[in-house]
């Protein structure tokens, strides 16, 4: 997030805005300490029902969408600067090799530079056909998963935890590509659990597929 503040400070006088959206089904208070610490001057919004994921067909965090002055999507949802290097880290020490750390930072830098170039020159904005082709399709299963997710979060929030858990698990089964759904289903009482052994097992099962698909810049 400090990088987004830097980006915003640098580009705000050029008609640029950053909207950061916290996907927090557990409630706004989970996002609060981060937001208060960040002291951002761009918008920090809280999405306790994951509405943005529903509207834009998102599957993980962080994902970004680029929207131009006319309100048109010029880059559909894509990974916002994160990479898969974490998959190779030493789980005991939770550290990456210096090479991986350097590559990871370089990839993040390249993505931020792409945002800069877009604001300054319009570069990287996709023509309509390419933008359309890059959109992930909403299937009937995904639509059902979203409705179950909505109901599950409501049930959890209103004290009907066990039933809410079942709805979230069903949602995750219907939409297995959504890491966000899986993590909300796996996690609630313990944050650590969502990145515990089950998480790593599921990440390993991806094989050659990416956890954070790199943006095609």
């Amino acid at each position, binding site marked *: 997030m400090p990088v987004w503040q830097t980006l915003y400070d640098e580009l705000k006088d050029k008609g640029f805005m950053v909207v950061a959206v916290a996907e927090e089904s557990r409630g706004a208070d989970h996002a609060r300490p981060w937001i208060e610490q960040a002291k951002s001057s761009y918008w920090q919004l809280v999405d306790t029902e994951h509405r943005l994921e*529903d509207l834009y067909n998102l599957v993980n965090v962080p994902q970004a969408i680029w929207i131009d002055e006319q309100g048109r999507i010029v880059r559909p949802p894509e990974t916002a600067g994160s990479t898969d290097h974490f998959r190779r880290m030493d789980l005991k020490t939770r550290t990456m090799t210096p090479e991986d750390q350097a590559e990871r930072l370089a990839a993040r830098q390249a993505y931020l530079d792409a945002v800069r170039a877009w604001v300054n020159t319009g570069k990287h904005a996709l023509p309509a056909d390419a933008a359309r082709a890059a959109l992930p399709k909403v*299937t009937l299963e995904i639509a059902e998963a979203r409705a179950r997710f909505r109901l599950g979060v409501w049930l959890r929030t209103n004290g009907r935890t066990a039933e809410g858990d079942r709805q979230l698990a069903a949602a995750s089964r219907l939409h297995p590509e959504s890491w966000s759904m899986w993590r909300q289903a796996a996690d609630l009482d313990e944050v650590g659990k969502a990145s515990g052994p089950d998480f790593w097992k599921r990440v390993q099962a991806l094989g050659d597929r990416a956890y954070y698909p790199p943006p095609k810049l």
Partner: protein
Amino acid sequence: MTRILTPTDEYEVKAHDGLWMAAADAERVTGWTLKPEGMCRDELCVPMPASAVKGSEIDVAAFWTKLGGPVIASEARDVWALGAPAEERNTALEGLQAPDFTLPDIDGTPRSLSQLRGRKVFVATWASW
């Protein structure tokens, strides 16, 4: 009372036998109006099967299913989620006009994407989990 969750709102309505309710409540929840030709919104009307209309009451579950939207009930059938139809989402995204949304900041002030028209906007998600 039956609670209905739509993608952006939450309603309490008097319903029976699932989601049978007065046409006025159906309109409040779905934005569609019962007319002789069916359920209508703007210029568009969707014919309703005779089995889903009785006098001035309609079966919203049947109507929503006909629209292609998911209808999910809690075990006690007191809370229902009406999800957005997949095709509605796809059509909106393929039009490339960024779907508007309104979400609160941490102080509860609502903010809408549409307030930022005229600027380039970088929308990015994150989470504490």
